[in-house]
């Protein structure tokens, strides 16, 4: 394959542990009760349009976008709205959500439930964007940024490339990998839809070389597509970060503080691309997704197609139960995922995986003094000095943190992963980002 492309600055190589990469996607039964948090996207939470006692069908709109950067939410089940109340979501906080009691599984009539592949894209760019907006699609790699917003570049900006993110650089996670293997054609059509929506001629699908079957499959499917290129990438974390991926495939650098559109790129995850296909070609809103359930002690590491709102305990049960030695439950991958308070929280649009970590893997090593080894600086994919930013944040020198670009931090965790002194660098960097973000906002207000 020759020299594989990758990004230049920093990066680490955590153990891959892709335990479920050979396990086909399995559809889970509809849950008896769906818990649908209203804040499932980056930006404003959605506003409910149903009330207690209402009958809803699967795929029916139950909450609408609460602002420009927000997304619609559709019922993942058919049944009766039990209550609209605070529910515990993946952050561990109690936040508003809609709880629906399931009765059967009656889908909204407008959804095309057939298995037919619809290859022709008969819609204009505006129609596509509207459909994606209606379907409530958000970035499914975990960022949950509303997809339709990305498809409407601000005035004066023009995209020339759509980049499909099939990197899946997080250890353990395999949902994107399986999707590329099992829904390759749909992803290619989804890519074309995105190209049409953005009026761009070129698309690139970036996949790390630890998924040779996915690379071969998609290369085969695109052999007659001149404008869609599959690019194998050297395995390196965090290649799935938008900025790192653009650098890897096109050697373009998104300027500090700017979005990918600045360099003519729009990046979409493969899961999102599949959801775009379903929304545009099948009229199917986003109410289910592929979730990897994995961990070293998990009996049956799996990839499940689960309805949004399914309690993750159901997914764990389907993977043959919670191992006795579980010490930590992570929503997402081990590098950027969030530790969950319990198994009662529901699957949301941004949930790519559930990782059950063993007790002995669940605790941080004791912190020791910084020995100024500069490993954190060497692995930072943004060219920052994490040791310095962490120190500045810790002692409250937010001006230093701001000048040294703390806001550029993508929270990939590479610095903390590599630190021989086991210093919780990212904890301090998040603190610094939070404080500096507030300072910048207040300054703008004046």
């Amino acid at each position: 394959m020759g020299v594989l492309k990758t990004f230049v600055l920093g990066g680490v190589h955590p153990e891959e542990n892709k335990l479920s990469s050979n396990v086909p996607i399995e559809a889970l039964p509809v849950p008896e009760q769906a818990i649908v948090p209203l804040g499932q996207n980056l930006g404003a939470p959605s506003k409910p349009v149903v009330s207690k006692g209402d009958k809803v069908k699967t795929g029916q709109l139950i909450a609408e976008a609460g602002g420009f950067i927000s997304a619609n939410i559709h019922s993942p089940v058919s049944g009766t709205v039990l209550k609209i109340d605070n529910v515990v979501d993946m952050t561990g906080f109690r936040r508003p959500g809609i709880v629906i009691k399931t009765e059967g599984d009656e889908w909204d009539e407008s959804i095309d439930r057939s298995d037919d592949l619809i290859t022709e894209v008969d819609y204009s760019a505006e129609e596509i964007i509207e459909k994606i907006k209606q379907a409530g699609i958000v970035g499914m790699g975990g960022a949950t940024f509303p997809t339709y917003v990305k498809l409407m570049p601000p005035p004066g900006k023009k995209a020339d490339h759509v980049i499909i993110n099939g990197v899946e650089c997080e250890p353990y996670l395999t949902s994107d990998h399986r999707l590329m293997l099992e829904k390759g054609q749909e992803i290619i059509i989804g890519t074309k839809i995105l190209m049409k929506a953005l009026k761009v001629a070129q698309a690139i699908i970036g996949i790390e070389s630890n998924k040779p079957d996915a690379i071969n499959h998609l290369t085969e499917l695109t052999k007659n597509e001149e404008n869609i290129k599959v690019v194998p990438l050297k395995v390196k974390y965090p290649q799935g970060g938008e900025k790192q991926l653009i650098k890897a495939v096109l050697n373009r650098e998104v300027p500090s503080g700017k979005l990918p559109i600045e360099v003519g790129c729009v990046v979409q995850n493969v899961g999102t691309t599949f959801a775009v296909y379903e929304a545009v070609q099948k009229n199917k809103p986003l109410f289910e997704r592929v979730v990897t359930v994995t961990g070293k002690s998990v009996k049956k590491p799996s990839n499940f197609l689960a309805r949004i709102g399914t309690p993750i305990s159901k997914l764990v049960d389907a993977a043959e139960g919670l191992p006795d030695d579980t010490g930590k439950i992570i929503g997402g991958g081990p590098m950027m995922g969030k530790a969950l308070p319990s198994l009662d929280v529901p699957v949301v649009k941004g949930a790519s995986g559930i990782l059950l970590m063993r007790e002995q893997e669940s605790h941080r090593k004791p912190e020791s003094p910084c020995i100024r080894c500069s490993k954190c600086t060497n692995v930072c994919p943004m060219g920052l000095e994490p040791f310095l930013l962490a120190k500045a944040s810790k002692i409250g020198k937010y001006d230093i943190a701001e000048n040294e670009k703390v806001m550029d931090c993508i929270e990939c965790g590479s610095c903390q992963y590599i630190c021989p002194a086991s210093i919780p660098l990212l904890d301090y960097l998040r603190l610094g980002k939070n404080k500096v973000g507030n300072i910048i906002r207040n300054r703008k207000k004046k």
Partner: protein
Amino acid sequence: MTMFTIAGSPHIHGDDSTKKIMYGVVIAMVPAMLVSIYYFDFNAIRVLLLAVISSLFFEWLIQKYLIKGPVTITDGSALVTGILLAFNVPTNLPGWMVIVGALVAIGMAKMSFGGLGKNIFNPALVARVFLLISFPVEMTSWPKPMPITKGFFADVITGPTPLGLVKEGLRAGESISKLQSELPGYVDYLIGQMGGSMGEVSAIALILGGIYMLWKKIITWEIPVSILVTVFVFSGILWLVNPEKYIDPVFHLLTGGLLLGALFMATDMVTSPMTRGGQLLFGFGIGLLTILIRIWGAYPEGVSFAILLMNAAVPLINRGFKPRRFGAKPGVQLGS
């Protein structure tokens, strides 16, 4: 209800640790240790044990009774300092001086700054320079290497180091070509058959250790390579100008404490710069100062002074040399 651990990401950690790094350095010093025991027999073991035990002891004493904090003498850092201190003194140094050296290294240069990670200067080098200034006679009487095979506890005969020989000879008005006949050969420098501090004599042993540390990613190439290249180029230019007055660059590379300093002392993480550019400048400065001191200074050897002087410049270097920030360059190559 089962309670699960909640913590911020990342949830996994690479297996690197301060301990691993420190013990990695110790392993890298084993070849040089063996060579010094081979050439300086019992005395090498004596100095090594004294330096290590007293370094560990002083660290324990200060942490336990002065700071009254956690005792961390098992982290390997005091062990490394102890071995490096032993490497930096002649093997016939009186025992109590070694102990004073350990006290200076651990107490003055390390713990008084706040302990591991906080010191500005390399502790072992501070101790070496302290001893050199306080006990100039004992610190410059170098035992002649005597292979262990020729008898244990042999009488120690002292003599000058090659660098000292050259310095004295030039002062007395002799020419390099005349001095060459009195000097050991390059093969001797490589294997360690020359007078000098305990750990600095064998170039091969030190390079082996350096390769091991590079392989284990304990050090990076920037500092040693920039030091050695600077020394080679600078002394090479002088040699080309007047080979009768200035000795050849290979001699400078292989003698004295240059390899020990470049591979084991200047690369000390705590006291060296954080970025690649800074490290290159740091190494350049050490190389330059070393040759300046060796040729025009009062002492025949200048590596320790050069490293300590550049240690002092590290905070400033860290300010001036930042890593290349992602997305800092405004120019974007469209359509590449």
